[in-house]
């Protein structure tokens, strides 16, 4: 089973996000492997351990995005591909999907794994675009793999439960948090990651031109949303339960 996991280098979600003009500020902000992608990497590793094959990583972003690939390699992935090109600054989901599809198509694959949505852009639309560009079926919000051999059988999260979905391979899945427990990179894993092969490629290497990556969205205005005001803040001196109950009574909900 050859597995491709898409990974993204995002600003550390534990640091409040800032804007640089119309874009998320990335310069000078500590970047990390998107925490949502760790579940995808782990899912790929578990399938490989059960069935053999390889786990390849694919990512798009400026040169520092290599850190995210190295991190995933140190968890145990086999190799990585990073698409880096100045023409990709400000890329939207559609452009990202087109580029990743071109990068993924360079090798044979059976399964593509993505996170449900990135922690910084959170459009959640990229995986569906990627599946369409690759011409393969897709199951999003996977919370459990029942079968991965020959065809897929997975549990897909829904608003009020889950569906069991069967899908032919090759396919794309997005995995939710909770599908597994991502492993920590061991010291040995971190050392080994330094020697694993990583391809850094440009748009031209993929046969794409800047025309293929033009963005159809532009920010034309920004305004502060109507702010809520802080109300009364009190220390819990033992009467807080009464205060909250009074509040709920006034609001007529109890």
């Amino acid at each position, binding site marked *: 089973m050859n597995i491709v996991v898409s990974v993204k280098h995002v600003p550390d*979600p534990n640091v409040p996000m800032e*804007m640089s003009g*119309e874009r998320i500020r990335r310069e000078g902000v500590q970047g990390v492997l998107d*925490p949502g992608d760790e579940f995808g990497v782990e899912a790929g590793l578990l399938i490989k351990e059960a069935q053999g094959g390889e786990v390849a990583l694919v990512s798009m972003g400026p040169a520092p995005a290599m850190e995210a690939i190295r991190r995933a390699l140190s968890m145990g992935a086999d190799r990585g591909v990073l698409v880096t090109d100045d023409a990709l600054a400000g890329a*939207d*989901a*559609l452009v990202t*999907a087109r580029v990743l599809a071109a990068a993924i198509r360079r090798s044979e694959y059976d399964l593509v794994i993505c996170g449900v949505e990135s*922690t910084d852009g*959170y459009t*959640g*639309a990229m995986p*569906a*675009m990627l*599946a*369409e560009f690759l011409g*393969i*079926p*897709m*199951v*999003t919000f996977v919370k459990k793999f029942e079968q991965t051999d020959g065809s897929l*059988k997975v549990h*897909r*999260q*829904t608003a*009020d*439960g*889950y*569906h069991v*979905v*069967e*899908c032919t391979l090759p*396919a794309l899945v997005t995995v*939710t*948090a*909770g599908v597994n*427990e991502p492993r920590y990179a061991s010291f040995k894993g971190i050392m080994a990651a330094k020697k694993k092969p990583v391809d850094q490629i440009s748009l031209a290497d993929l046969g794409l031109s800047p025309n293929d990556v033009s963005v*159809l969205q532009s*920010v*034309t205005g*920004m305004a*502060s*949303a109507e*702010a*809520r005001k*802080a*109300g*009364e*803040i009190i220390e*819990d001196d033992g009467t*807080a*339960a009464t*205060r*909250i*109950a009074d*509040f*709920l*009574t006034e609001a007529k*909900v*109890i």
Partner: protein
Amino acid sequence: MDSTALELLTKARELGDAEAVALGPGATEAAAQLGEYGAATVYAGDDEVYADYIAEPAAHTLFELIGQHSPDLILFATNYDSRDIAGRLAAKTGSTLMSNAIGLPSTEVAQTAILGGATIVDVKLEGTPKLVLVRPKSFVPEPAGGEASVVPVDVPIGEDLRRARRLERHEEQAAGPKLDEAAVVVSGGRGLQEAANFDLLEQLASAIGNAAVGATRAVVDAGWVPYALQIGQTGITVKPSVYLAFGISGATQHMVGMKGAKRIIAVNKDEEAPIFQIADLGIVGDAMKLLPQLIDEIKARKG
């Protein structure tokens, strides 16, 4: 019917001539209500293929309908299925897809909230058709009293689009109301320390009555509760009468999903927690200590 569809129609008829596409069992039946909320025409396809197979049949049909009718703008309610369908459709049309929209000043501009909802961004969309995924509760649905003419959808769906099939549907019976419909939302964050403590939120919700339990992304990522409970930028938007936040610091990602609540009560140990800036009643204290007291107090008052 998903009430977001009615919200979207209300907005769409304000922006121009509105039509609706309904796919899956019950589509034709839904046409009357869609007409009442502003759809002049409803393209209805009742075929079970749209419910049984994920995204591909619906995206294909929409693409065919676009070819026939050349719409300027297509609105989707943000939910599990339509993100997949809209994403596939955007790759087919090569046109722009805007996610997480909360406002539509015109057919060419969509608004989205960033930085935890503190800032609203106007995004101009180019190309046709423009595809926009709109967050639920962005608009207030209002009936217009019209009647839709129904046009049956007859697009052949080949075997090549029947690849991801639903075999079984399981509904996990949550006690009480749905999260996005409950009058009160009782929500927990990392301050609750461990998964087992969410049981206290369940107890509080059932003591209150018309209340549902929600969670932050951090605890969903930690595997404490399923994704379906996640409130925030990623996840569900709620606008209850009262929102009670226990052990939630108020990460930007969370606030955008709950700051539309009518009243907010926050309990957190850290007096500097950002959630206090938007709370009507803020309690600096230990949620774990307070929760049992509050459950008892409410039970006592309700007799």
